[in-house]
């Protein structure tokens, strides 16, 4: 049931699109600065640093200071993009994200690079599977998870002028393109596939897998609606309510823990406004050793796993 996913489509990671867009924006908006923790290379900031050496603030391996410094830069009129590996940005600096950024209301864009299980075989210390749960609990912090490079570009452009605290989860795992040019509107979940039997609600790298699952379900005579939730907070409640009301059940898929993430966010809406059966797919427990693709399969975060969950709801 956990057969590996295969695809013949070209695949992309989101970091290049992120870095290119940030440079484009920085050329016309001198308020934009990048802040990082010795992560110039891993955050794809080499070109940014070359073009804007003064506007790259590398504080060294010090995430608490990194986020505090970003808040101070925002106080001074800048729009900081904090670029750091997501596990350390969100885990080590969680109180700074809450107090210095969100509670202050500073327009800091926190960019969680290589999130989820992007650092597969480096192990659970380097996995960022708790980030959505932790950050959803923080008031006044928008959470955006682009599904592909097209969405990444649009999300970065949006974040630069959002004027409020934002967490951007920038994926590293290569996925096919799943959205169109207008495929990101803040706060909107996009219906990538219509369907009235089952709804699959996915985010980030899981979206392409949800589409693959929908293809297989269609072959089995099950019409699966696929929603790409690129804004985790605030959630597009109407799209979720419609999905719950208009289908027999909702499957959520995320590259993170079940507790408190996308699935929980969807369930909070479903249970209140449109009770419906649900299945939540995500990471359960600390991962064993393995690369990202292996771990996706291990946790059933693939076509087969999604299909199986959907079929459970249909019966």
């Amino acid at each position, binding site marked *: 049931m956990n057969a590996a996913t295969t695809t013949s489509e070209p695949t992309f990671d989101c970091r290049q699109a992120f870095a290119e867009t940030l440079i484009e924006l920085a050329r016309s908006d001198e308020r934009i600065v990048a802040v990082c923790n010795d992560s110039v290379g891993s955050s794809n900031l080499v070109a940014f640093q070359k073009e804007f050496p003064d506007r790259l603030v590398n504080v060294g391996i010090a995430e608490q200071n990194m986020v505090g*410094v970003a808040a101070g830069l925002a*106080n*001074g009129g800048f729009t900081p993009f904090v670029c750091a590996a997501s596990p350390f940005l969100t885990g080590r600096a969680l109180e700074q994200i809450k107090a210095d950024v969100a*509670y*202050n209301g500073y327009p800091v864009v926190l960019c969680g690079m290589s999130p989820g299980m992007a650092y597969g075989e480096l192990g659970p210390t380097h996995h960022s599977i708790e980030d959505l749960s932790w950050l959803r609990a923080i008031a006044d912090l928008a959470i955006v998870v682009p599904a592909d490079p097209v969405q990444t570009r649009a999300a970065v452009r949006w974040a630069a002028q959002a004027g409020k605290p934002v967490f951007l989860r920038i994926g590293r795992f290569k996925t096919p393109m799943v959205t169109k040019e207008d495929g990101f509107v803040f706060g909107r979940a996009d219906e990538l596939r219509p369907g009235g039997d089952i709804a699959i609600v996915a985010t980030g790298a899981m979206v392409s897998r949800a589409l693959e699952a929908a293809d297989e379900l269609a072959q089995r005579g099950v019409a699966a609606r696929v929603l790409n939730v690129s804004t985790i907070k605030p959630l597009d409640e109407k799209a979720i309510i419609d999905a719950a009301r208009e289908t027999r059940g909702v499957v959520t898929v995320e590259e993170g823990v079940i507790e408190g993430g996308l699935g929980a966010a969807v369930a909070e809406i479903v249970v209140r406004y449109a009770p419906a059966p649900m299945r939540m797919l995500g990471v359960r427990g600390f991962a064993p050793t393995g690369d990202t693709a292996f771990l996706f399969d291990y946790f059933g975060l693939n076509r087969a796993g999604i299909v199986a969950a959907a079929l459970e709801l249909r019966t």
Partner: protein
Amino acid sequence: MHPPITRHAGFVSPSDVSSMPAEQRGDFFAATALEMRRSIVEMIGRAKAGHIGGDLSVTDILTTLFFGVLNLDASAPQKPDRDRFILSKGHCSAALYSALALRGFIPRELLGTFMQSLSALNGHPNRRKVPGVEANTGPLGHGLPIGVGCAIASRLSGANWRVFVVLGDGELQEGSNWEAAMAAGHRGLDNLIAIIDRNRLQQGARTEETNRLEPLADKWRAFGWEAVEVDGHDHAALYDIFTRPRAGRPLCAIAHTVKGKGVSFIEDRVEWHHKTPSPEQVELALQELA
């Protein structure tokens, strides 16, 4: 003897103070600090909550900064070229609110709502509710990193505004301060001044018995800072340090203070970290602060 305090409220700017003869300046600071202390005691007595010991130890530092040093405009609290003041020891909000009220940022009547339900004056300051507050502090070890970011922003903007961060001494046990200290030293942020309210007491005991800070000045110097020690209740000495031209390195002023300064039964007693005075004790305190 002292001029009536109402004369000061919102009408005296640091440029006025700088042009005063030293003796007049001293009287002005003394009168202002006295008024702040009275205000702190009344606020905390009424609220039955607060951190009176640290408020009273930091009062003279705030007096000197707000009335003699900081380039601020109460009628334009967000003006871009203002100096940034960050109270990292955010629990001493009563002292900050008193300074902001005397400086004209908030109405003095508002002080009476300190920590009351739905008041703008939370136990820890909120920039979105109180003009003049730069950063919502409270959890310790947050002010200096924000201040480093402000100092970098000033430089990147090609501006001249300065950044002043007041920290508690116990707070220096938080590692994030030393991340920030290292970054500021590395960058030679000479537009940044950290002031340590060195009252030698933390919530539960003396700092040196809890987790030793000394040799404190050496620590800052080792991180690339200029470090000076000063009597934190001596306005003239503080004023001299804060207004001295500087170049090349961030400055740490270790301001030696007495926790609870000015009220004999509160001074240097660990239990007065957040103990609150009874109505009778408020009266006694105000008599001492007459």
